[in-house]
């Protein structure tokens, strides 16, 4: 090895001596040229390189480059630019002359040279990947009028289902990639920020009426450089027992070398409530609003007029970035306030983020990034809470529940209870990269995520008639989340050239997560008191969980003639939640990628129709570890008449192991028709074995239920992502995109366990049944029992639908004019779900038919009226198909001519809208909303009270960089 290097060094020395001699003798030449895009636009910032000489230059604002001091001779020149194909030309340099070489860059829709790292342990070009890894770029993030990561993902990840919860602040979406893989565990992908695993729990507060706070809502999108997404399977295998739901990696923005650049951004916005899914008081209090003698006469849209309101939001950001050759930095701060579209819905956010990178030595880099977020927000009761104003007014309960005579008086009472919450979150990441040569590099990352939230619900005594409390109630819930991540990755790349290339990655990765909660409730408070110490009676409880997951991994990637790439990997995992008899778990992966390697083949075969093509196939296993302590036989003690009273808690299972998902996937990425059309297609089949079920013990044992690995679940699906450039000329470029995902979910084996319900509504169950999808709706269905053609009885039947969609997709449109005006639109859609409509059930108790129901007959064919909502669940299951115009934005970047007099390096203004229109097949529930969830564990959503859709948002933002 050493002699090899000496030889290379000697040769290099020899060459340099020869070259120096040559230059001295006959002088040097210069290479110049212009670089434009295929649509004729000038392209600044393009790197033009002569690899053989290790020389290069970037194009200036006019798109011109100049490389001087070149020895005469023939060279290969490359022009490289993100988002464009690398163009290559051969030039001959003559001493004392300028050689001109212009480049026309073709856009690269499939971006084969883009580098990703998630699940690979090292940076790998996309063309070598055997499994699909999604990337959301800084450009995509900037143009999205969103503030949290879950909103950013909506419509941007093919094959995903991402459903918001409601219009209230602090909530996060239910995220699912590639189908449901468990009947007990959360489906939220794990999230890493700069290599550190962070809190992704969707239920971090008490759930009042089915609405709780999600840790996703304070994962902000500002200063994010890139998001990488693996949806489970082979691409996630190196994350082992934590990866079955997929992995989202967030990379924060680093500073660029140069003078400090200060960026100010302000965003002013208006939120409009969506009233589409309300009948309003004209329906629910018809007799009062139509009676001229009633004080509520004429108030047929009380919800829209008096409860919902226009919200205002303002957001201020300042960031400074810059650095020297050895130290770069990027720090920013942000303040945001929104008033919300419902009463008591204010939210305020303070955020700081910093990223410092230091080159300690030429081969040693240290990077530190950290973020602090403080989020304060308040909500009103919603969902199944009895003090939920929207439901009470929509279904006619408002006066009855509050005991008030008029709508105004009732509303006053409904708005007295408050639910306030504050979240403090620190995320820190430190990493060191040591790369002594091109052949070896290693990286050590350590980090922590600390999230603390305090939620306080206050039912003042004045609200007693509504809440049922006596002299008020104060509920407090504190949750403290800490996780520590440690990762080491080493990479040996040898040989790097020749017919066979090899990259071997090895490492160890682990995390420890600790969550503790404290719940306290004080009853009987004097007016104005907000302290437990002053309550007449106090109850309190706490929970604690600790878990460690750690493992070692190795991955080998071999390239053959740069035409075929084969990889194999293995992770061995241990976890503190595994049963005592379960040892290390092994997760293997295997894949092959065959990128375009012989252009003439495609040209010969398809006559230029195909410009680029990569075929890929991969197999990989991932896991999902069980709950902490579910393996132990334990006792639980409760307070009883002044004593600690123990009883059986968990039966214990020494064989408790992770759920294992084995995924086989294949597909291709291609560019066609002169790079005008790109297509990415993946087909997969994923089988989850050892699926965990909460199995009842025989009641004779006195033990309740125990998690056991007895089931099998299958998901099969297809993901398609297509982009087409419709127009590309005269500085106008218009591109359209579409994505589609389909997944078929089925419980293939329940280990002999009987069917059960994940959740039950009054007349429909989310059923777990072999041969059906997870949570398949089984609803009370009217039918004709005596053959007279008239429905006279009802029984529970599967409806063929699920609470979540199985077809999802999105459309995008991006129009760019003169490189400084861009118009972007995003719509997403889903079909296949049905949503249980609680509101129409409750309306029944007030004699209101909110959802049309089926007429019931007796056995003799006499009409009996409508089936009750208890017997007619199918009529309460509303069609969940929707299409939402999610985002439309127009942005304008000021031309340089305007910037110079103002001493600005850039300035832009944009107008954006979000959640602008919803198309649905019914107008009783917003089909997108996840609705009632209980936080933690598997949440399918799909049942809703009267819940407000995320508002129509309009944002005007201005950004200047000094």
């Amino acid at each position, binding site marked *: 090895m050493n002699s090899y290097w000496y030889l290379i060094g000697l040769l290099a020395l020899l060459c340099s001596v020869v070259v120096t001699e040559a230059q001295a003798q006959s002088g040097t030449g210069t290479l110049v040229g212009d670089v434009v895009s295929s649509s004729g636009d000038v392209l600044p910032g393009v790197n033009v390189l002569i690899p053989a000489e290790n020389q290069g230059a970037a194009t200036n604002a006019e798109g011109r480059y100049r490389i001087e001091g070149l020895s005469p001779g023939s060279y290969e020149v490359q022009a490289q630019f993100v988002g464009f194909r690398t163009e290559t030309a051969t030039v001959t340099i003559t001493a004392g002359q300028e050689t001109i070489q212009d480049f026309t860059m073709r856009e690269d829709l499939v971006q084969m040279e883009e580098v990703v790292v998630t699940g690979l342990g090292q940076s790998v070009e996309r063309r070598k990947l055997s499994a699909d890894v999604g990337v959301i770029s800084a450009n995509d993030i900037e143009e999205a009028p969103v503030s949290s990561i879950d909103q950013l993902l909506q419509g941007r990840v093919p094959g995903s289902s991402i459903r918001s919860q409601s219009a209230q602040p602090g909530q996060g979406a239910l995220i699912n990639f590639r189908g449901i893989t468990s009947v007990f565990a959360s489906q939220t992908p794990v999230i890493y920020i700069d290599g550190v695993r962070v809190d992704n729990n969707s239920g971090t507060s008490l759930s009042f009426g089915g609405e709780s706070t999600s840790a996703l809502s304070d994962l902000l999108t500002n200063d994010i450089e890139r998001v990488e997404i693996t949806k489970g399977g082979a691409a996630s295998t190196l994350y082992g027992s934590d990866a079955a739901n997929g992995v989202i990696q967030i990379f924060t923005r680093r500073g660029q070398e140069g003078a400090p650049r200060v960026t100010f951004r302000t965003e002013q916005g208006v939120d409009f409530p969506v009233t589409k899914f309300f009948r309003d008081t004209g329906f629910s209090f018809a007799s009062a609003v139509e009676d001229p003698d009633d004080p509520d006469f004429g108030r047929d849209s009380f919800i829209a007029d008096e409860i919902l309101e226009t919200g205002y939001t303002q957001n201020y950001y300042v960031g400074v970035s810059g650095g020297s050759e050895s130290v770069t930095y990027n720090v920013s701060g942000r303040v945001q306030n929104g008033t919300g579209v419902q009463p008591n819905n204010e939210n305020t956010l303070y955020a700081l983020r910093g990223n410092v990178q230091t080159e300690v030595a030429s081969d040693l880099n240290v990077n530190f990034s950290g973020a602090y977020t403080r989020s304060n927000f308040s909500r009103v009761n919603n969902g199944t809470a009895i003090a939920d104003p929207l439901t009470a007014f929509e279904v006619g309960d408002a006066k009855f529940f509050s005991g008030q005579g008029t709508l105004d008086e009732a509303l006053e009472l409904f708005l007295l209870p408050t639910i306030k919450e504050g979240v403090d979150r620190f995320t820190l990441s430190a990493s060191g990269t040591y790369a002594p040569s091109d052949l070896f590099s290693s990286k050590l990352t350590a980090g922590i995520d600390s999230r603390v939230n305090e939620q306080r619900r206050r039912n003042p005594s004045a609200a007693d008639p509504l809440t049922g409390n006596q002299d008020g109630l104060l509920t407090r819930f504190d949750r403290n989340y800490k996780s520590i991540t440690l990762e080491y990755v080493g990479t040996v790349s040898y040989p790097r050239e020749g017919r066979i290339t090899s990259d071997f990655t090895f490492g160890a990765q682990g995390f420890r997560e600790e969550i503790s909660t404290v719940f306290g409730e004080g009853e009987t408070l004097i007016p104005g008191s907000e302290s437990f110490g002053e309550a007449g009676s106090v109850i309190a409880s706490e929970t604690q969980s600790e878990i460690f997951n750690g493992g070692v991994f190795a991955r080998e990637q071999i390239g053959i003639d740069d035409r075929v790439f084969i990889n194999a990997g293995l992770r061995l995992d241990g976890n503190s939640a595994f049963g005592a008899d379960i040892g290390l778990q092994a997760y293997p992966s295997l894949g092959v990628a065959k990128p375009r390697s012989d252009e003439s083949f495609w040209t010969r075969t398809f006559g230029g129709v195909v410009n680029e093509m990569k075929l890929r196939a991969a197999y990989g296993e991932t896991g999902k570890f069980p709950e902490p302590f579910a393996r132990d036989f334990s006792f639980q003690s409760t307070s009883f008449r002044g004593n600690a009273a123990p009883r059986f808690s968990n039966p214990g299972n020494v064989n408790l192991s992770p759920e294992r998902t084995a995924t086989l996937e294949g597909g291709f990425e291609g560019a066609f028709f002169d790079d005008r059309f790109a297509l990415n297609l993946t087909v997969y089949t994923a089988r989850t074995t050892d699926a965990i079920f909460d199995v*009842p013990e025989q*009641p*004779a044992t006195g033990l309740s239920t125990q998690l056991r690995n007895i089931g099998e679940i299958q998901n099969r699906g297809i993901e398609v992502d297509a982009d087409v450039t419709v127009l590309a000329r005269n500085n106008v470029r218009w591109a359209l995109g579409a994505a589609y995902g389909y997944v078929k979910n089925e419980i293939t084996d329940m280990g002999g366990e009987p069917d059960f319900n994940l959740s039950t509504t009054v007349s429909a169950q989310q059923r777990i049944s072999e041969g059906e999808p997870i949570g398949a709706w089984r609803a009370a269905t009217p039918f004709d029992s005596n053959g007279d053609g008239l429905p006279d009885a009802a029984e529970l039947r599967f409806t063929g639908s699920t609470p979540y969609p199985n077809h999802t997709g999105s459309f995008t449109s991006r129009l760019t004019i003169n490189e400084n005006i861009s118009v972007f639109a995003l719509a997403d859609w889903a079909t296949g779900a049905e949503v249980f409509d609680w509101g129409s059930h409750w309306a029944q108790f007030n004699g209101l038919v909110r959802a049309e129901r089926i007429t019931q007959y007796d056995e003799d064919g006499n009409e009996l009226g409508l089936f009750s909502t208890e017997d007619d669940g199918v009529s309460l299951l509303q069609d969940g198909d929707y299409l939402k115009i999610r985002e439309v934005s127009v942005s304008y970047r000021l031309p340089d001519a305007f910037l110079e007099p103002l001493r600005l390096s850039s300035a832009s203004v944009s107008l954006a809208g979000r959640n602008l229109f919803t198309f649905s097949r019914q107008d009783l529930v917003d089909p997108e909303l996840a609705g009632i969830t209980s936080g933690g564990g598997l949440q399918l959503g799909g049942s809703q009270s009267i819940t407000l859709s995320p508002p129509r948002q309009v944002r005007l933002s201005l950004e200047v960089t000094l």
Partner: protein
Amino acid sequence: MLTSNHSLASLALAVLLVGLGLAVTGCDFLDPTEVENPQTTEDDLEDAPDLVRVFLPGLEAQFARALGSTVVTTEIASDNYSINGTGLGGTAMDFPERITPTTAVINSRDADTGSYWNLQELRALADYVLTEILPEDEGALDADVALVHYYRGMAFLMQAENFSAVPIEEDDTPRPAAELYTLAEAAFQESRSLSSGGSNMLRTSAALARLHRGLGNPQEAPDYAQEAIEIDDDFVIGQGFDEQNLVNAPHIYLVTRALQEMQPLPRLDFLDPKYTARDDGIVVAKAEEMYFIQAEAALAQGNPDAARDFLSDARALAQSRLATEFSDSDARLDNNLNPRPQSSSIKIAFEPGAPFQQGLVLDRPGVITTPATSGTSVTQGDIATASGTELVRLLYQMRQEVLFLEGRRLHDLGLRLPMMLPELEQNPNIAAGDLGTETIIPTYIPPANEMDLYDPVEIYEEQEDEDGNDILVLIEDEITMLHDMNRILAEERGLVMQNPRLP
């Protein structure tokens, strides 16, 4: 900037120092794999002192759960209460033929319903203490162990009364009620052998009297009843609850009554809600019941005069018990939102053709006075003049009224409940249709929910008062119960002691 060699040397030095330090001091403080279950595990119990005593409050709390849930379950399954709304899983429990292992109240592990589960857990926890804990606890007091046997016996007794057959260990075949009685008796006798203190003798003799009545032993039952009365002739043994953590189970549906879930039979309205505080105790045994057992034994032995005397004693004692004043806001609605009887002027006939009686319904909403322990509408005159079947009917009526909300009525009716679903599904030795898996309904029980019904249903009309407020105006002040279940029992079943209907 450091040179590469410098950085490497520093890094190596740092690693060396940390490595040496850890090797010397041990690295437990850096061990990320160590986790601590905050709950008690079996490891935590090893070598812990006084464990029987530690588990006693757990047994008491579980007994409270078992008792509370059994009272709620049996009161709604009997004619004492009917169900309104969805808070108790709908109205299935009002229809005996609809009660199956899947019925929400039966297939429940809740502390306020879930009778089957809570009784099984009580017995299993007592078994665990006796087999796993006691052998390791050398200093355990006999009195404490006696209490463990008592709780175990009470679990068997309540199972024997209300279920037809129950398995008592993993993979067991269901033990029929008669065997459960035998197991209960053995447990009580074991308890008595360990502790002959007054309170233990009182509770076990009361339990044995009740047990032998259920077994159909007219000799033993009154003897144990007499033994209890001799210890204390007006005794009440109650199981208290916890105001915050384990509320009196009926209280949830009678007082909090968010959905007016439990509505009493109109002729028992004057006894409802009995438990007005969250931690009110439920009566486990009281002297009145001993007199009833003695009266029943006297009837069985052909001595109606003695029976009348015992009933008079029971009545006198019941009348002497305390009453509670309570502000009741219950709207007294039935499932079709019709107001149920809630005016003191209403007169009730116990069945078609029977005389109308007033004073059984209280004015609500409003401040009412109800018995806190015992109450009855039966007069001394009723007792004095009754004979033959009518005396038996009166015995059933007095038991129904005086032992109201104490979980005795379902057993008197002869109805027996099925086991919960997981017991049937998880045990390879139990199949659907086996004894214990279905509700046992005597042929004399009327169809559907007729035990709960009265006529007419619409007895109020909504009108406006002078101020324009909606008020209820009584339009029908005489209502007739569809069935007098006490007469049916007297005629069809006779005495429980003579016809125990044991599976």
